[in-house]
């Protein structure tokens, strides 16, 4: 099964995780929100897949480019 990495495009704090393991997430939909620059920036998935693993929890500091969740195609 192909592995799809969801990466945050911004540095910030994890604000809200909108999905749970096993959820089907369509390409372009958010998996979580990151608090950054006084905004809540979504982490969008690039390809449709099933959420396999969430690598962060709410309140965690994340860096630009960091993988925050793994999906399977």
């Amino acid at each position: 099964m192909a592995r799809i990495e969801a990466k945050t495009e911004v540095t910030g704090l994890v604000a809200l995780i909108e999905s749970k393991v096993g959820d089907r997430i369509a390409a372009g939909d958010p998996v979580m929100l990151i608090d950054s620059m006084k905004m809540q920036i979504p982490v969008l998935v690039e390809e449709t897949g099933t959420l396999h693993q969430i690598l962060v929890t709410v309140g965690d500091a994340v860096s630009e480019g960091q993988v925050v969740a793994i999906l399977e195609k």
Partner: protein
Amino acid sequence: MNDQPKAPPAAGGSEADIEELRLRRAEALQLGGAEAIAKHHGQGRLTVRERIDGLVDAGSFQEVGGLTGQGRYVDGRLVGVTPAPYVMGLAAIDGRPVAVGGEDFTVRGGTSWSGDRKKGGQGGFIEDLAASYRIPLINLIDGSGGSVTSINRRGHAVFPGVHGFERSVELMGKVPVVSAVLGTAAGGPAGRAILSHWSVMVQGTSQVFAAGPPVVERSLGQKTSKEDLGGAGLAVDLAGTIDNHAATEAECFALIRRFLSYLPQNVWELPPAVASTDPVERCEDSLLRIVPDDRRRPYDMRRLVKAIVDRDSLFEIQPTFGKAVIIGLARMNGKVVGVIANNPMIYGGAMDVKAARKQTHFIELCDCFHIPLVFFVDVPGFMVGKDAEEAATLREGMRAVYVGLQASVPMFTVVVRKCYGMAGMGATDKNGIDFKIAWPSAEWGSLPIEGGVAAAFRREIAAAPDPKAREREIEAELRAGASPFRTAEAFGVEDIIDPRETRPYLCRFIDAAQGGLRTNLGPKPKYGVRP
């Protein structure tokens, strides 16, 4: 064994002469020979002749200098010619003439060739043709430049710039220059690629760097691969050294044709307008709901722009680099415009060092070729934080502002949401009529209210029984006063519009601006010192 020819051919073009010409032309078409071509194809790359055929209008290529090369003679009789490793000439794209040339990698890896006159690369006939005829230049780059072996050949080391870049630099102010990196480009050819208005490379089969892995290992002890050092992932996405990438060479040629379709032949002409099939009065309802009420939620700025410009007309430049700003060429009622739109999905649209660099180059491109600019503004200011300061965001950001304030093409400012600080100021037409229209969702100031209240009202907030509550109260009071309608009352913003009206409103003014553009053509003088 190579001998010199015994005597020049007889004058008048005898049958023997025509036969020799036929042979020489046939030799040129052989490039570096079947084996070298097969190896080149095996690496997923086209030959320079296939590239030119794939790029230009069918049948339009008139080669120049096809006879150049190293003749091989036996007893004074020509037996073959190894062509010069550069193929070039005049061609057409969408019926408009272009100068096109590229290295032939199958001959000595496309390294520099020294005849009486250079064919191309930096300087050379192809650049003279583009400059003198005022037509676009397309460089199909697939060579590694000079080689230390030339010391043996020439008997001396060449001083840098003997085949100077001065013509290449001159072209940047006169005609569109496009470079495609189609192999591994280092040294001069890499530099040539950068001296372009727009550049493109192919993922997986092309790389660009100042020097390749052997030099890097010798210099720094770092072991690296060509792809890691200068593949599209680094050169396009991370560094912005090259503007766009393509999956295949064929896609690369399609992108070049598309880019040139927005540009005039030279700075003495207007960009080509087309008859638009998209109605000026098209008002998209989706624009009414695209900006969320919650100010912390971003939205899809690309979708917003695409709903306003002529349908399918947005050609994005550097889509994977400096993503806090979206830039591209587009059309409004068939007229070419440059679009600069902040992207709230990336740090709320704050201008970071990469976005600033991208914006600076694009403003200069549009100013040079008399392309009006449309700003879709949602910028909270310059990017903040230690990383941003270390990267000199302030300096690069002010450079973008400086270049914007020097530009003399008409600019139209559409404030979609935030317009703050110096980054906001850089999105306005200070040399023109300073025309700013805003959506009702707009807000502006020297800095965002939530950032400024804590500092400006520090004592009052500290003295309050509930400091947090007092801070929120002050924010709410200020926010009411910051309504865009209040600024419109003072004519501090020229208009506030229903978002759906954006397209017809802009189209009318862009149509009207053509007269001013038409009567102000030519090269743009450059003054002053960029910060």
